[in-house]
């Protein structure tokens, strides 16, 4: 069956069947390179996406869930100022993650950073947990996210 959804701001028309996972459709039909499907059980975090602004594991979602949804992958953020800021803050904290979880970490960071209000630390830790990453300290991640948000808030106020 044919369905439509929004991927990184662009409307996508794809042909799906009931047996396919969101991960497969994004990788094969939409040419998304940032995802990988290692576990197919939502346990590794390498398939993380944002669906309607919320983190979700694309490997445990059937493709028919996509209809009329808004999906974002890290490709949507890599060229933004917010991404560069968060990336340099993480580096400054000495918390650059390994290559296997970097996309998931940055995506979780971006989902927090683009909010207008600062999230509580518990919420940041909860969001970071989605990435199942052991190579980054939650406190450092929280610090990088909050500092990035402060930089952005200051930049917005500056004429």
């Amino acid at each position, binding site marked *: *069956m044919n369905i439509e959804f929004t991927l990184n701001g662009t409307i996508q028309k794809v042909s799906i*069947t*009931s*047996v*396919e*996972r969101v991960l*497969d459709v994004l990788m094969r039909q939409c040419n998304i390179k940032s995802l990988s499907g290692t576990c*197919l*059980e*939502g346990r590794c*975090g390498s398939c*993380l996406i944002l*669906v309607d602004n*919320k*983190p*979700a*594991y694309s490997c*445990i*979602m*059937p493709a*028919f*869930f996509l*209809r*009329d949804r808004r999906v974002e992958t890290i490709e949507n953020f890599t060229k933004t100022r917010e991404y560069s800021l968060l990336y340099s803050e993480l580096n400054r904290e000495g918390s650059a993650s390994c290559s296997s979880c970097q996309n998931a970490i940055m995506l979780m960071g971006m989902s927090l950073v683009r909010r207008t209000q600062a999230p509580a630390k518990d919420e940041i830790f*909860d*969001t970071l*947990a*989605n990435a*199942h990453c052991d190579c980054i300290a939650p406190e450092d991640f929280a610090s990088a996210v909050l500092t990035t948000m402060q930089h952005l808030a200051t930049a917005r106020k500056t004429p």
Partner: protein
Amino acid sequence: MNLSEIHYPHNLQELTLLLEHERNVQIIAGGTTFGYVQASRYLSFEPSIAYIRHIPELISIHKTERMISFGAACTLSELEHVYPFEQGQAKELMHTIGTSAVRNIATIGGHLMYGKRFLTLWALLACLDAELEFKAILKTSTKNIWYLADERGVPAIGSGNLLTRIRIPLQSIDHLFIKRVGGSMFPEGDGAYLVSAATVDRRSIANFKLVVAGARAYRDYDAEQRIISSPYPLPARILQNALRMYAESLRKSNFWNVELLLPLISQALENLQRSNT
């Protein structure tokens, strides 16, 4: 690899009509029944699927003076900020289910209708007297959550049941005790949750329930009544009496580990004694 026909009903009427015409439609809103469970590359469903996350009646949350009611297709994340999950131990319990990326997909309806065992939130909802609304084409019925268990406490979900809403009476929870025993809860773990909840006035217990739920569900109605009918704080002999009643009924069930659960029930009752201080 068997392909299924996918339906996207727009409202409850369309869904009930579909269920009337096609008896074996698999209702899907989240991922509880297949998310962790299907590890093969291709997913497998019944020949016909109804995806119900688009149905407005099934994703709404209503709060009145006396109760909260939420649609069965609400995700667990959407319920995090409403009674009874919004704070304290209930929130922690919700967070044990999975990360937010899981809770953003899994729905409360899938959680309750899992069918193979009673999942994480079941015991808490049973303690709070949750009621479930089921719909058929010409009939709406409301059942207590214990409708999902047979007389031995084994999950008993009849086919053709369309769970539409969950209603929980709003009450003051003055005592809430939650303990997990065993390993994992899902999908086939040996874990169970012991939950007790009570509303306590100055000199009496207005409401008390203690539920254990995992592979089976357990509750001792008589012991609860013994506790409710006694003055508060509970006299020592009533506590002993209640513990004896729990021990007897656990043994009679021939399923639960009495040596493991009885100390936890004792802890729950001690916690109840301190809840109004």
